[in-house]
């Protein structure tokens, strides 16, 4: 899955790229601070030395981590808060609601671990519900970058803003970066037959894109991408989905996380929508690799293909393969 160095920046994984971006960001934004709960502190020791007092490690105290971030923001600072997703979102969830949201202050929360990066660590370090939880609170933007360059672009943009932002880093990534402007972008088109309805659309979120492209390589479906599932680009989705959408939404976290937003975007038209993500009804009590977990959850190439295929009309005696074209984005 890892690309041959096609990125514009250093070819680091998302987490390492995040750490590498903080030093220039702290230089460029005098109001920026970093709040840690041990995770990342060792990697950022030199950054902390270069910016005295601006990288704060509160120890393994995640409630205090978010409370401190809220207090910093109340004095005009722009906190970047970072740890593993379960300890950033789930453990201090009321702090997200009260110490940030209710105070009407912003922060940039940057998580690692995603749904099952820590497959070998077990359930305690996995947070497939993180995006659903953050999106349930008012005023948050959720970025799910698919490439380290997208991480850098998102951080640079959000450092200069004031809002509440959740950036979900992942060990899974796409070969090349895509736009991070919050919109839904068509990545692969497929020619319509004369007078035919638009082909089904598959919306891939963040690091699911390359899996979706591989899974649909010979299917007559269009593929779109977003790195910002919340708030969802409803206008862009409506435009691509067409008047009678057949749509699959493939997300690397809890299945159906974006279902309400998609339903609202398509409320004015008859739509058939398949949501693909981490199943919400069973705890997977297995270790192994992230690829093992992706396969178990149906989030590998074969699993995604099985779900997307259900949207493709079966035509007796005709090839299922349409004429596809990769789009520059």
């Amino acid at each position, binding site marked *: 899955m890892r690309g041959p160095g096609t990125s514009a920046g250093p070819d680091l994984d998302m987490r390492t790229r995040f750490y590498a971006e903080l030093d220039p960001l702290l230089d460029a934004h005098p109001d920026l601070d970093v709040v840690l709960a041990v995770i990342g502190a060792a990697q950022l020791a030199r950054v902390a030395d270069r910016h005295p007092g601006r990288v704060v490690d509160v120890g393994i105290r995640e409630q205090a981590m978010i*409370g401190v971030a809220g*207090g910093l923001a*109340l*004095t*005009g600072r722009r906190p970047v808060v970072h740890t593993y997703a379960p300890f950033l979102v789930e453990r201090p969830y*009321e702090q997200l609601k*009260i110490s940030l949201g209710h105070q009407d202050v912003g922060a940039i929360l940057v998580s690692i671990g995603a749904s099952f990066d820590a497959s070998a660590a077990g359930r305690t370090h996995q947070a497939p519900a993180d995006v659903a939880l953050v999106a349930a609170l008012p005023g948050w933007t959720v970025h799910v970058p698919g490439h380290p360059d997208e991480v850098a672009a998102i951080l640079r943009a959000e450092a200069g803003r004031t809002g509440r932002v959740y950036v979900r880093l992942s060990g899974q990534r796409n070969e090349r970066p895509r736009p991070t402007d919050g919109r839904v972008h068509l990545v692969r088109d497929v020619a319509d037959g004369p007078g035919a309805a638009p082909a089904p659309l598959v919306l891939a979120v963040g690091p699911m894109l390359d899996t979706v492209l591989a899974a649909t390589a010979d299917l007559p479906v269009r593929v779109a991408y977003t790195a910002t599932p919340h708030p969802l680009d409803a206008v862009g989705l409506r435009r691509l989905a067409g008047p009678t959408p057949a749509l699959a939404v493939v997300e690397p976290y809890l299945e159906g996380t974006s279902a309400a937003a998609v339903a609202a975007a398509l409320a004015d038209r008859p739509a058939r929508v398949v949501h693909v993500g981490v199943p919400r009804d069973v705890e997977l009590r297995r270790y192994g690799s992230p690829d093992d977990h992706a396969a178990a959850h149906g989030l590998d190439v074969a699993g995604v293909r099985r779900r997307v295929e259900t949207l493709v009309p079966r035509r007796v005696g005709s090839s299922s393969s349409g004429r596809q074209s990769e789009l520059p984005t």
Partner: protein
Amino acid sequence: MTTTRLGPAHRLDAGRVRDLVARVTGDEKHDPSAHSTLDVVRVLYDQVLHVDPDAPDDPDRDRFVLSKGHGPASTYAVLAARGFFPEYWLDDVASWDSALGHHPDRTLVPGVEIGSGSLGHGLPLAVGMALGLRVRSPARVVVLVGDAELDEGSNAEAIQVAGRFALGNLTCVVVDNRSDGHGWPGGVAARFAVEGWTTTDVDTRSDDGLAAALRRAEPDRPTAVVVDTTRVATATGRTVTA
């Protein structure tokens, strides 16, 4: 003592402030325990905090953080007495048209620094404020918590962090009315002292004594002021335990 800015002296009249509290609570009697928080808040805004109702967003203002947000009547009364908002706001608290609720919302009320109500958020927020203001502003952060509120584990985290970061611009006032069901063996102050805070035990019998405790600050450590509100002065000046 590091306070270099001149202290305010507004001489809020205690009786008038109590009348304003009664406008919130509808309570004609002056229940001593109900007014223990009032003494602390009144003395803070009368003699300790550098705040200006004409510049409620001054970046160098002192911050009073009411963490124990379920008793905001005294804070509302004092803010009104200091002119942060009109006194008539006190007459319909928690109505549809009121900016004042049973728990305060900082986005609705001039002079209110945090929205609170859920226990255990104010002290961590105050630690973040103190970190944000340290080396950038002469402002102090004074956070008020209750002895029962200290049950919330988030406070333990914040007490530890404030001690480790030597936040000399932070004061935590613990209003100790012995409302904690399980008590604090060895006393409330010990929880702060072991984490490197300087601590003071005081009661509410004398405004001047309370003000002196609340003004106290040391440059290299946070300050905890534990206010025993069960010891009150009677009309004859005799001290009783309520």
